[in-house]
């Protein structure tokens, strides 16, 4: 009978997430204190490490790019009521699609001609990797969480097999493909800035960041402004009403998962075409999993996802600096902070609501 507390929208999307992050940082500060270091200093180092100089900003935004893609992937599935845990595997296989396209065509076409083809490769491979669990969920009732997790392992095993046995560059020990021709590399940020005469330090940031921002806009339009997005949201909110409205939930689930996998697959554009310039193992480095936290924090809205991605990009990049600067703090501290952020903005997301509601009630007395 008791209803959740209704807060003004600006509080719900602005104040509450900020409070949640502050709480997470406060608890993290206690941990740093317990380790015998100064948390204020640590925060300072972290922020400097993430934004203090142009190379740092480049790294931060490069991580952000990956998180945007995987965050969007999780969010799109979530709007249909699906919990896609398989972003990691879909990104991995998406990268395979990118690699195959470029390995086949890199001497023949320049990067701008390759990019659409590579994106199709990423979308096709990542999409299929998600659509299969989607089909199993829709038509066979296999739970999407279970199947997408299993598909992560299958993806991992498949990549090891391909790189060790099939695609490895002859005559070398490490399981990697040959490097792509330089003409196939996506332009780096420092190269693009150099064209317009601005000198920027070298970093892995590349054109993919722009693609990620475009993808965010397109996803927002698709979900809230098209009949297909409407169908997805209807299925997610109320499957019975969807059937009543003539929307086929099974088809919707299948295609939503395919779309989700396509978005995750775009990580391959950033990593393989943009940064690594060859196919290799484990380039997804957990971005798929972090995407879940990103979508959760970003409330499954592209704007929130971009902001949350930036936060996690900051943590990834700034956290690395913590490791260098402090004797007692290792890189794992980042995972601890991440953990607290997920805890406070996910599991305990509504902890501050009653408090804020009471405060607002006191400041703005109810009318009537």
């Amino acid at each position, binding site marked *: *009978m008791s*209803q959740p*507390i*209704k807060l003004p929208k600006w509080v719900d999307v602005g104040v509450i997430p900020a409070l949640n992050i502050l709480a997470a940082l406060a608890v993290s500060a206690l941990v740093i204190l317990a380790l015998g270091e100064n948390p204020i200093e640590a925060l300072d180092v972290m922020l400097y490490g993430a934004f203090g100089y142009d190379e740092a900003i480049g790294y931060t935004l490069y991580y952000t790019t990956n998180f945007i893609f995987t965050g969007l992937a999780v969010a799109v599935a979530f709007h249909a009521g699906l919990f896609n845990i398989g972003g990691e595997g879909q990104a991995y296989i998406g990268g395979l699609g990118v690699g195959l396209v470029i390995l086949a065509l890199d001497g023949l076409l320049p990067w701008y001609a390759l990019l659409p083809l590579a994106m199709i490769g990423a979308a096709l491979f990542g999409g299929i990797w998600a659509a299969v669990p989607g089909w199993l969920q829709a038509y066979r009732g296999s739970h999407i969480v279970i199947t997408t997790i299993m598909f992560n392992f299958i993806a991992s095993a498949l990549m090891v097999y391909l790189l060790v046995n099939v695609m490895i560059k002859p005559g070398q020990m490490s399981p990697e493909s040959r490097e792509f021709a330089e003409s196939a590399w996506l332009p780096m940020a420092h190269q693009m800035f150099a064209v317009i005469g601005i000198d920027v330090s070298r970093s892995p940031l590349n054109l993919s960041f722009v693609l990620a921002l475009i993808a965010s806009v397109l996803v927002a*339009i698709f979900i809230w*402004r*098209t*009949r297909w997005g*409407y*169908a997805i*949201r*209807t299925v997610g*909110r*109320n499957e*019975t*009403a969807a*059937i*009543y*409205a*003539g*929307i*086929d939930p099974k088809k919707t689930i299948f295609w939503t998962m395919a779309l989700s996998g396509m978005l995750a697959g775009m990580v391959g554009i950033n990593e393989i075409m943009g940064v690594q310039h060859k196919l290799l193992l484990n380039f997804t480095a957990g971005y798929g999993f972090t995407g879940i936290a990103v979508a959760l924090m970003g409330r499954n809205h592209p704007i929130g996802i971009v902001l949350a991605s930036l936060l996690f990009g900051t943590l990834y990049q700034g956290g690395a600096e913590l490791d260098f600067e402090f004797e007692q703090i290792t890189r794992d501290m980042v995972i601890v902070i991440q953990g607290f952020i997920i805890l406070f903005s996910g599991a305990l997301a509504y902890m501050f609501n009653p408090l804020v*509601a009471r405060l607002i*009630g006191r400041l703005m007395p*109810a*009318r*009537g």
Partner: protein
Amino acid sequence: MTSDHQQSMAGGGEPPAIELKGISKSFGPVQANRNVTLRVMPGTIHGIVGENGAGKSTLMSILYGFYHADAGEILVDGTPVTIASSRAAIDLGIGMVHQHFMLVDTMSVLDNVMLGSEGGALLDKGERAARAELARLSRDYGLTVDPDALVGDLSVGQQQRVEILKALIRGCRILVLDEPTGVLTPQEADRLFEILDALRERGVTIILITHKLREILAATDSVSVMRLGEMVAHRKTPETSAEELAELMVGRKVLLRVDKPEPKIGETILQADNVTVTDAQDVDRVKAVSFTVHAGEIVGIAGVAGNGQSELLQALAGIQRLSGGSFSINGTRTVSAATPYNPHEARGLGIAHVPEDRHHMGLVTAFPAHENHILGHQDWDQYNNGLLLDREAAIADCAAEMERYDVRPPNPHLPAASFSGGNQQKLVLARELETEPKLLLVGQPTRGVDIGAIEFIHNTLVAMRDQGAAVLLVSVELEEIMSLSDRILVMSDGRIVGEMMAADADPQRIGLMMANISEDDAPQGSPEGDKAA
């Protein structure tokens, strides 16, 4: 016990069993109860009526310790008390039978009754005591239930009896029933009122919350009316009438009977031949049903919930597939197991569907009103602009319809969940009638809808009929079927067991048909109707 209590009491020296003084309760900006005063005399049946959202349930939740009043006082037997939890309420002798039963289907009656009062780590002793107590209560009040039957196997009426037993076995002297007859056949309801009479004879005080005025008039000693969170009137039941109570509830004059002109029957729109629907468990829910609906008439299907009406309606709307038989629309499209259609095609053929359960089917409650306004019409050209949805068109359309149907508040951006039941139903009706359908399928059009809106919805349905639409109406409210329909079909156990013109219908006869008891072998005195469930 002060002297002013004494003076205002009708029956002499006893204090009221329950007295509420100046109870107020708000949820955020919404004031659910405002300065509510109520006196319930011991050993009486006291009715509380009011529209949905009038604050009846909140008031009873305060009495049962679910909510705490912001202000006001509660007196039980003249003594001020604080009721901090339902446990405290039980200790004070207050029992509650909820609209939706709080029973564990897979456990026996005995286990359910004991739940929460097991009396120690081992069940043995508590079980023996509970069994003896059950036997005593059955004897005293005529509340017969087999203590070893599984609750899931019992009829709805019997499950309700278990709820009452549960309250009594905890020593309840004041019993609150929240909309107790919503799920019962007329016969089961009569039986319930007999039980309440017996309880009253033995000194139990009963508070009956309902929106059915007929029950108030038939069963209570006195009645209190709530409107918009306030207690607006107290009446002795014999001194009031349905018209007066309705007016008090709504705040204006209400027409309880539907005035409708003679039907102008047109061509056959829906022709069903041996329609059979089978559910996922392979049980036939609709068994070879045949009937017709013509343009310009309202055909009502009466029946106890769960006797196949829902499945029939969904099959006609294209939501469920037929497993046998067929039906034809307009004489042009024949739908059968081999040639199924879906809701999309059904809409294209001029069928509109106001589903029985607007929360689970008719609306996406999290969506704003304007998005609900295009549910089922999301592919229409008028709501699409190339690849994109034309949100502005949907919003403008929705706002116009809200105006026409007097939906309050008329704000297309509010989520559907924040409208009252009546206004939600108007949203659904507005959407479905916008298409000017040839065939209108309507399920439970006024379930959970307040009296003011019921009048409006009934008039709207009659207006559709007069414009030449064929209307198929499914409702568990017999009164509604009787007052709206031109022709009545009665369904029981998936079959049509009776058909009559509305003019020839009488509720007693339909009630027996609903329970699938033929008039000849209707038991004298207490038809239980248990078979039907």
